[in-house]
C-alpha cells in the first residue's frame, strides 16, 4: 500500500490580523507552501479547506478562499469540527489520496476570529457546550476545562503551579517563533497574579483567539517522490480519530479525553510505533490542563502524573518528548480552523531538521494531537522521516 507524504508546508503570522481578510491570510500560507514544494497549481488535484464558519461574515468560506488562490475549477469543500478542523482536513486529504481519486491535495487551514463584534463573540463563547442542558447556565469554554482541572486536582493532587508550568514552557518556546501571537516569556509570579477567568484558571491558563492560516501539501508516494526532488518528504504514517459525547454529562469522567486516548491508539497501531517512540509532539493546549491530560492520554506518562511530568521538565527539548516547542496554542494563539494544520507544519519542519534554535535532536517520529471543543472530537497523526 502506498504511503502519503508531505511535500510542502506554509504558515502565516498568527495574531489580530485586522490587516487582512481570511482569503488573504490563506494566500500568505499558500504562497510559502507552494514555494516550499516547488510546484505550480497544475500539480494540485484538489484542496480541502478547514475553517469554522460562524466566526466569518462571509458565508461558505471555502468558495472565496479557492477563488482567491486562483484554484478554480479544482474540487474543494469545507471541513469543520470546531478546533480540530485542521486535522480533520488533513485526514480528509489522506483519504482522498489513499482512494486514488486525488494524488496531490493542498490542505488550507484558515480562520478569522476577530471579524465579529465583541458581543457576538461572547455569545458564541456561551454556546461551546451542549446548548440544551448546559449553556443555559452560562457554561464557557474555559469553564468546562476548568472543571476538568478541578477534578484532576482533586483526584491526583495536581497543583495550580504545575498547570502554569505548561504556559511558562510554551511561552519560552513561542518567544523564538516569529509566527506566534505572543513572543514573550512569562514568569510564575506574573501568571499567578493575572485576572481570574474560571477557577482554578486565570488569564495565563487560557489560549487566546487569533486570526491566521497554515497550509500543508500532501501527495501519494510515487507522485511525492517525483515532485520533491530533494527527497525531504515527511510521511503521514498514522491517522487516528475518535469522538466522545458533546455533553460533559455523558462522559465517563472529566480527568482525560477518551477520544484522544482512542485516536492515539489507532494512530500508533497504524504507524507501528509506541508512545515512547515519539520524539516531538504538538498537542492541543487550549488550556493548561489540556496539555497535562494530553501527556496522559497519549501515553507519555501514567494517568494522573501529568503534573509531575511537566514539573520535571520532561516535556522540554532534552526531556522524554519535546511538546509544543513552537509555542503551542498558548503562545501562537488559536485560529481554530488553522491550528491543526499549524501543528502539522511544526512537526514536519522538526522532522526535516529545519527548526534552528528550537530543533529537537534526532527527531524522526513526531505526533500531532488536535482536539475539537471539549474533546467531542480528537485527531492524532503520526509523522515519520525515514
Amino acid at each position: 500500500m502506498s504511503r502519503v507524504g508531505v511535500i510542502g508546508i506554509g504558515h502565516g503570522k498568527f495574531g489580530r490580523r485586522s490587516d487582512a481578510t481570511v482569503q488573504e491570510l490563506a494566500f500568505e500560507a499558500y504562497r510559502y507552501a507552494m514555494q516550499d514544494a516547488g510546484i505550480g497549481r497544475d500539480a494540485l488535484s484538489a484542496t480541502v479547506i478547514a475553517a469554522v464558519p460562524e466566526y466569518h461574515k462571509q458565508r461558505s468560506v471555502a468558495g472565496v478562499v479557492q477563488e482567491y488562490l486562483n484554484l478554480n475549477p479544482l474540487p474543494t469543500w469545507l471541513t469543520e469540527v470546531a478546533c480540530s478542523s485542521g486535522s480533520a482536513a488533513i485526514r480528509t486529504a489522506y483519504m482522498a489520496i489513499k482512494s486514488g481519486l486525488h494524488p496531490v491535495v493542498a490542505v488550507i487551514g484558515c480562520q478569522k476570529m476577530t471579524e465579529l463584534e465583541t458581543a457576538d463573540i461572547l455569545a458564541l463563547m456561551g454556546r461551546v457546550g451542549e446548548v440544551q442542558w448546559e449553556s443555559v447556565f452560562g457554561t464557557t469554554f474555559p469553564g468546562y476545562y476548568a472543571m476538568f482541572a478541578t477534578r484532576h486536582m482533586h483526584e491526583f493532587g495536581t497543583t495550580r503551579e504545575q498547570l502554569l508550568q505548561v504556559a511558562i514552557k510554551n511561552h519560552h518556546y513561542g518567544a523564538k517563533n516569529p509566527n506566534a501571537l505572543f513572543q514573550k516569556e512569562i514568569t510564575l509570579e506574573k501568571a499567578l497574579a493575572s485576572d481570574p477567568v474560571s477557577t482554578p484558571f486565570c488569564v495565563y491558563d487560557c489560549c487566546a483567539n487569533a486570526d491566521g492560516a497554515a497550509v500543508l501539501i500532501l501527495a501519494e508516494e510515487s507522485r511525492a517522490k517525483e515532485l520533491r526532488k530533494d527527497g525531504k518528504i515527511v510521511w503521514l504514517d498514522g491517522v487516528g480519530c475518535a469522538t466522545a459525547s458533546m455533553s460533559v454529562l455523558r462522559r465517563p469522567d472529566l480527568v482525560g479525553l477518551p477520544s484522544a486516548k482512542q485516536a492515539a491508539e489507532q494512530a500508533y497501531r497504524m504507524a507501528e510505533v509506541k508512545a515512547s517512540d515519539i520524539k516531538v509532539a504538538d498537542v492541543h493546549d487550549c488550556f493548561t490542563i489540556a496539555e497535562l491530560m494530553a501527556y496522559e492520554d497519549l501515553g507519555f506518562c501514567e494517568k494522573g502524573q501529568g503534573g509531575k511530568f511537566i514539573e520535571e521538565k520532561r516535556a522540554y527539548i532534552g526531556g522524554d518528548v519535546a511538546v509544543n516547542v513552537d509555542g503551542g496554542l498558548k503562545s501562537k494563539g488559536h485560529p481554530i480552523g488553522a491550528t491543526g494544520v499549524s501543528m502539522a507544519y511544526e512537526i514536519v519542519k522538526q522532522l526535516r531538521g529545519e527548526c534552528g534554535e528550537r530543533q529537537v535532536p534526532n527527531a524522526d517520529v513526531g505526533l500531532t494531537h488536535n482536539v475539537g471543543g471539549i474533546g467531542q472530537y480528537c485527531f492524532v497523526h503520526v509523522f515519520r522521516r525515514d
Partner: protein
Amino acid sequence: MFSWFGKVSFVPYSKVSDFAVHLKDGRLMGSVCKKCGYKTIPPRADCPECLSGEFEFVEHSGKGTLYTWTRIDAAPTGFDDVIPYILAVVDMEGGGRLVGWFGETIKQEEIKIGMEVQLVPQIFDEEEIKVYYTVEKPGTTWGKAPAPHLG
C-alpha cells in the same frame, strides 16, 4: 415551553419541552423509555438502547453528589449581570448527571468534591416565566404545585 429553561435559552422546542413546565411546578424530571425501561436524566425522547420514541417523565428526588465545579468570572453574553456564578456538575442519584448553579445555602469555601447536594427547582424574578434549579445543602425543601394540567 422549553424556552422557559435557563437564564438564556437557545432551544425553543424539544420533544421533552414539558421538562420546563414540570420544573415550574417544582418537579425535576428524568425520563424512562416505555418500551425497554431505559432511565436517564436529563430526560430524552429517543431511547439510545431500543430506538423507541415513546417515553414518560419520571420525577427525580434531586439528590446527588458533586463531581466537579468552577466559579465563572468571565461570562458569555446574557450572563454578565450574574457574575460571579458557580457552576456544578452533579452526579445524580440513580445515574445521570446535570449541570447547575450553586445556590444560597452553600458558600464557595464549603464546596468539596464528593459532597452530597440537593437540586432545588427555582423560578427567576422576571416578568417572562423562566425556570432553573440550584445546588443546595441536603434537606433543603421547596413547594410543589398540584399535579399540572399540561397542554
